[in-house]
């Protein structure tokens, strides 16, 4: 029996486990295969102010060790989400993080004001599509201003620009933690049509192919801003991948593509993470956070 303590504190939010699902990759649909209440939290698919029908199919393509996706944020809109999805999570005792995205600052403000009065929201994750520190700061500022103090705000950054600058801009403007990161811009062409495979043209790459890239983002932000809580996401498919994110500086992790292949992966990875901690005599997940940055014992530098 595993002894390590998985409970963790993410920017003031108490989580029973550091393993979360990633936006757009997990939700009610997983309930038949995995105990959602045993997860740290479920991050919803990204919700916009108005309902969106999404990108034309195909929306997902396989790549070597990866997945390319472009769903175009298909969602029922905030009102639909609050009426149908959110209450379900409450009934099931699942902690829910609401992912939001908007096309303008005014819309971000509107989303935040409406979420502020909704019950059962522990945290809001702001989906940032552009790797730009200035924009990131402005968006976070607007969202933070209108949410109650007790609501944790996570900023999910887009890779590409200087991720440390973006993280700094996010927390300076009120984000409690950063999520690293969105998928990486990518493309797949069809050998028959000689055109992009995805209906939307380009997409974002995720899966094991991006794990090392995402790990580097987590590492860099933790090295530069050690006090900023980080959530690591990208290509996690095993307990060790999750542990690696913690070692690089993440307080919690999110699972994305792996859930498409294996709908019970969240339970499996939670167990595997416990084993990985035990094997290394680590008493808790929190003890592992940032451990890879420490100098080996006896090192003089």
């Amino acid at each position, binding site marked *: 029996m595993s002894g390590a303590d998985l409970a963790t504190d993410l920017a003031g939010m108490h989580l029973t486990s550091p393993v979360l699902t990633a936006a*757009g*990759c*997990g*939700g009610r*649909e*997983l*309930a*038949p*295969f*995995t105990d959602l209440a045993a997860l740290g939290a479920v991050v919803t698919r990204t919700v916009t102010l108005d*309902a*969106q*029908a*999404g*990108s*034309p*199919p*195909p*929306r*997902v393509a*396989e790549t070597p*060790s*990866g*997945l390319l*996706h472009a*769903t175009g944020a*298909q*969602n*029922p*809109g905030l009102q*639909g989400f609050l009426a*149908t999805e959110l209450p379900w999570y409450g009934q099931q005792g699942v902690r829910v993080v609401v992912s939001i995205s908007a096309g303008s600052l005014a819309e971000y403000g509107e989303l935040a004001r409406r979420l502020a009065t909704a019950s059962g929201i522990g945290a809001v994750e702001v989906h940032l599509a552009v790797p730009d520190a200035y924009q990131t700061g402005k968006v976070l500022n607007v969202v933070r201003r209108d949410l109650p103090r007790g609501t944790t705000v996570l900023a999910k950054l887009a890779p590409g620009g200087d991720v440390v600058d973006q993280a700094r801009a996010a927390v300076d403007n009120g984000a409690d933690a950063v999520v690293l990161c969105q998928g990486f811009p990518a493309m797949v062409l069809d050998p028959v049509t000689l055109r992009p495979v995805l*209906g939307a043209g380009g997409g974002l790459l995720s*899966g*094991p*192919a991006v794990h090392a890239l995402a790990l580097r983002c987590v590492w860099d932000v933790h090295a530069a801003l050690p006090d900023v809580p980080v959530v690591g996401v990208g290509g996690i*498919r095993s307990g060790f991948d999750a542990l690696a994110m913690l070692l690089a500086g993440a307080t919690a992790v999110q699972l994305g*593509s*792996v*859930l*498409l*292949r*294996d*709908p*019970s992966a969240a*339970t499996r990875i939670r167990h595997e993470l416990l084993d990985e901690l035990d094997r290394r005599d680590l008493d808790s997940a929190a003890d592992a956070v940032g451990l890879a940055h420490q100098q080996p014992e006896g090192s003089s530098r």
Partner: protein
Amino acid sequence: MTTAAPETGAVQVVGEVLSVKRSGRYHHLTLVAPGVPERFRPGTFVAVTVGGAMAETTLRRALPVHRVRATGAYGGTVECVFEATDAGTRWLAAAAPGTPVDVVGPLGRPFALPKEPVTCVLVGHGCASAPLFSLAERLRERDCPVHMLLGAETEAGLFGALEARRATRGVTVATADGSVGLRGGVVDALPDLLTRTGADVVYAAGPADVLHGVALAAETHGAWSQTAVDVPHGCGTGLCLTCVLPVVGEDGGTRMVRACTEGPVFRGDRVRWRDLGGVPADARGAS
């Protein structure tokens, strides 16, 4: 390991390949998948992993179920018929007996069965007709007279014509090149069959253009149609929103709905066939 799904009836099991046999252009796969047969209803499908343990990222392949056997030496098997069209299905076609395969299923909504013993016509194109045989069995249990109409481009593309003779009252075969049966497509042959049999319900499985034609013919004859739509799937469990198609709801509004959770079987008159593969401008987001 078996993870059971109380609401949907789907389970996730580590199964294995029992056999893969060639069947003309197609492959007839038998999987050991305990727990799936008991929950199966015609029209539902399974989503299987491909590529083995090293293929950590590859998406699942969704396969319609031809037949299940709940008992026997292997404790529950599922049979699927498919064409090897990509790296994943080619791997499956070449898999040796004993190869472990993770199976999630049965998934999706099955064909709705009539309450009365009404006459039914089952229309299939190519190997998409595979799920119609277990459906035929269920319909006969309910004393529904069953007729089958099977088609393909050529004789080699037909699936199950012999089996259909055993399973149904009458079988009509159509090939585009006339190599066997009537010359033309199933949609050309359907109106006459509907008139002859006076069918009340049409069940169909095949490519979108065939289903579209079937739905129109059924409507013209005042019959009710149930179509199993074949669109690309990413996960089979409703997470990835890859399998969406525009469907008209009770309120007359169009929604992008998921074929894996709300389908694969839809009422033929509800699907916006012309807009398949796109997102109509008036479509709303999924629920």
